[in-house]
């Protein structure tokens, strides 16, 4: 059970990493909503995912 607990826990960090990559991609390469406001939104929203995969918050 402890093994599966740890595995699920690690998977959540992997998911956070995937969301981070997705946001980075959307920041630099997207087809819609090309204004600078959306640049700011994507850059700002990736902060918690970055802190999570760095095991800080």
């Amino acid at each position: 059970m402890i093994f599966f607990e740890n595995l699920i826990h690690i998977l959540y960090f992997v998911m956070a990493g995937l969301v981070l990559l997705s946001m980075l991609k959307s920041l630099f390469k997207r087809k819609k909503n090309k204004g600078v406001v959306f640049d700011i939104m994507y850059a700002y929203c990736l902060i918690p995912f970055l802190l999570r995969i760095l095991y800080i918050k």
Partner: protein
Amino acid sequence: MEKKSLIVKIVVLVIALVLALLSGIEFWQLRHYKETIVASEDLTEVKWFSDYVPSLKNTWMDTPVFIFDSGVEGGTVFVCGCPHPYEPASTMAAYLMIENLKVTKGRIIIVPRANYSGSTEGMVGDAYPMFFHVSSDWGISQYRIGDRYTNPLDQWPDPFTYVNYPSGQNLAYQDIRNLNRTYPGRENGTLTERAAYAVMEIIRQEHVDMAIDMHEAEILYPVTSTYVAPSKVLDREKFLATGEMEYYEPEKSSLDVAMMAGMNLSDQFLMKSASSPNTLHGLSHREWADWSDSLTFLMETPEIFIDKITGPRTEALMTEGKDEFLQKVTDKGLTYFPYDMEFGTPMWYRTGRHLTGALEVVYWASFFYPEMEVEVTWPTYLEMEELENQGVDSIGYFLKNPDAPENKDRAFTIYYKPVGANYDKY
């Protein structure tokens, strides 16, 4: 992509990374800040939660367990500090006990930070300071405030509903990270359940006679300024055989001891007594008694910092406890504590209450049941009150300087793994 657009994106990303760095530094500092205490000369042994539950080793839920054995036969007292880190008078009381206690009969076992992981972050969504400070004549000490729950960095995700083991009672989802909802715990459960199991194993393996859990509570919560103790305990054999929960009055009554202690304290401060409900599971005052033979007590002090209707949550609110909103609510008779904003609920007051509240329980349990007698002293509420009346910071007065040469051999860094050579000596 236009060159100009690319430059804007890079600039925005750099600004976000700078913001992440700035916030990350603070979170990192809170996560890795190490408090150091000086154990009293009566210290005989230091163990860890992982000595009782090996899978906790090198996890952020491992934590030191300080044991003081007088060498004279008597009872054993277990004191649990910091089950909820955002109730820090609990930790301060445990630190003052560890630094100052003298035991002449029986044994004392103290865990100053029972949920170490939870002390390494703040409440999500609640903006409040990371630390509070205590002044001594040798300097200023800094202590974490912390969260109520285990840090999600260490245990995540939460389920939709938390089901307490073995009662099967449904609790709020986040209570799966609440040490005082996960008793009696599971050896192979979540990180918090394993820490709860470690506490149970300390109580069982060390043959604890009196177990004291130190908390703080909102004054809008009825069980503030209160001892909680069970009047009945679970028939364990019947439950394990049939799954049926039946309760009986034990030979030795925690509630009798708590009521006597509360009455005797009435000339110092208000301390009510409440019976632990049979139907509310996962809490220390229920499960410690149900799953061990120990007398069990939970103590609550009034901590307005965690009331939801206060003004700004500043360090002063934590250390002085003065708030005009709670005064208004108290004036309307809506709180469960005679709150007076002039005095507030200062840290020394709440810490002193825990120190004397625990001593009073030990005294009356020893009086009622001489076979478990323990003789111990540490700073008291009245001593602290006298110092405060003289303008001295009473907590700082009783704290020892870990950097002083005479204390170097007994200085212990509180962390999730041993730091420094002194742990090897015990």
